[in-house]
């Protein structure tokens, strides 16, 4: 059984590796890269929203912090975005703790509201802060050729594809490790019933901050990755409120509180939204978003526990 499962994963990874070589179409590769990025974002959210019962609707703030940190470090100091990516993750952890600590007593929807407000504040701050390019945004100088140091590849999407795949799998791996550990055990207890967990002596504030830190870090890493992929960032693209909502939707659609659910969510919803936008988006009627919304509604009615519930027995 265990062995069969491993084989299954190996096959999937091999398929993912050969996929962009077989489907050597830029748009298809772009969609796949977005799947990886959103998969990573949804999996990060899963740690807080899926397992720890902390419903954040402000993940865009951390995504933006990652994107801005690595881009600024590259533009101002010439630091490679690879290190910038980790720096962005650390800044996001700091921001997560700064917001999480005062909110550590907030319950349920109050916590959700606090995260929305936080993301809002960050958005307004960045829109008006000239050092970070304000409303105009930032675009790093383009490297003369593909460069690993500058984390820029323009002759092909393949490097982004593989980096994205790697980052997503890394996120899944780390989240899985954490959730299966003792720490994860307490996080799940927290998510199930915070008051009971507290009455058993679980240090709620501490585990909340651990959970928030993990999610913030990987969300910011995804932000840096995105910044390097598009090489132009501004508040509407990396600090958008809709992004925060999308992250929650994808995770819940796929099945939050399970390891692979958020990835399934990304695999299904991201291509749907990308193709809907490509086909109907130009009509300016919002039809793409309506189709997207309709699919989500139908699924929430028939599969309230997420797509992943097709695969697991209760």
């Amino acid at each position, binding site marked *: 059984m265990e062995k069969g499962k491993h084989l299954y994963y190996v096959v999937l990874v091999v398929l993912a590796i050969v996929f962009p070589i077989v489907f050597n179409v830029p748009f298809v590769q772009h969609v796949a890269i977005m799947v990886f990025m959103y998969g990573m974002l949804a999996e990060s959210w899963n740690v807080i929203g899926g397992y720890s019962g902390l419903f954040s609707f402000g993940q865009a703030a951390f995504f933006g912090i990652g994107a801005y940190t690595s881009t600024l470090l590259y533009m101002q100091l010439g630091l490679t975005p690879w290190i910038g990516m980790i720096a962005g993750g650390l800044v996001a952890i700091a921001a997560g703790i700064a917001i999480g600590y005062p909110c550590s007593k907030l319950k349920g929807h109050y916590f959700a509201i606090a995260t929305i407000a936080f993301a809002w504040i960050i958005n307004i701050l960045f829109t008006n802060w000239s050092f970070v390019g304000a409303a105009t945004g930032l675009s790093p100088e383009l490297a003369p050729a593909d460069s690993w140091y500058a984390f820029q590849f323009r002759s092909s999407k393949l490097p982004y594809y593989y980096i994205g795949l790697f980052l997503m799998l890394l996120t899944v791996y780390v989240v899985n490790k954490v959730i299966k550990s003792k720490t994860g055990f307490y996080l*799940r207890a927290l998510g*199930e019933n915070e008051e*009971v967990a*507290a*009455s*058993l*002596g679980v*240090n*709620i*504030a501490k585990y909340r901050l651990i959970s928030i830190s993990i999610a913030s870090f990987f969300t910011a890493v995804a932000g840096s990755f995105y910044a390097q992929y598009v090489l132009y960032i501004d508040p509407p693209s990396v600090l958008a409120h809709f992004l925060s909502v999308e992250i929650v939707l994808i995770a819940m659609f796929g099945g939050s509180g399970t390891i692979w659910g958020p990835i399934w969510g990304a695999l299904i919803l991201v291509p749907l939204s990308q193709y809907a936008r490509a086909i109907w988006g130009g009509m300016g009627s919002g039809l793409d978003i309506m189709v997207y919304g309709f699919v989500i509604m139908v699924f929430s009615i028939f599969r309230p526990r997420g797509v992943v519930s097709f695969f697991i027995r209760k």
Partner: protein
Amino acid sequence: MTLLSLKLIWGMFIMLRVNGIQVGYGNMAVIRDVSFRVDKGEIVTIVGSNGAGKSTILKSIVGLVGLKKGNIEFMGEDMGKYQPHERIERGIVLVPEGGKVFGRLTIKDNLYLGSYKYRKEDKSVIEERIEEVMEIFPVLKERYHSRADTMSGGERQMLAMARGLMGNPELLMLDEPSLGLAPKIVDKIFEVIQVIHSKGVPILLVEQQIHRALEIADRGYVLQDGVIVLEGSGQELLNSELVKKAYLGM
């Protein structure tokens, strides 16, 4: 004798001392000037009807709600400076009302969560404790690997109590263990409470099943609208006019 040693001797007999506490949510005071104590080896009960503030008292003892006035001493030490997890490390354990268990986790995992304060100890120590606790609750043994939400209400209450015992309490606080259970199951629960007590664990029992609670209690307090209106031994209270009239319908 120094003040400190006096305090230590004091602490040897008195487990819990609640002094004139006021507790509320927002501006509303739910508990007003409540004082009581639990000594070593006792079963003490606080009885009162719906909304009297029983759960609020227990929550304030573990620190889930803050005090507006008064103080709480546990084994001679003021609890005011401690967070909930620090109080539990000192041996206060609350079994919340309604048999609240972690439904999506197995019985085994629920019990492990109860031993949170021993998380750094060897697994064998915890497993030994699980064995001990399951001797009191054999039903948990049969269902050890099932999810807690597959159990009946009575079984959940047993699990919640067993989980509380995993923390090796110096004081076990039970919030309405009989809530919503059939009389037969309630009998069983009360038997188990006495078994736990006979192992030397002092118990603070909060109940609406006043007759039953007073029967097994050494001492009791009657709580009405956040105020203690009567106290005495279990027998005294059972025979009191107030309890007979207002609660037992005699």
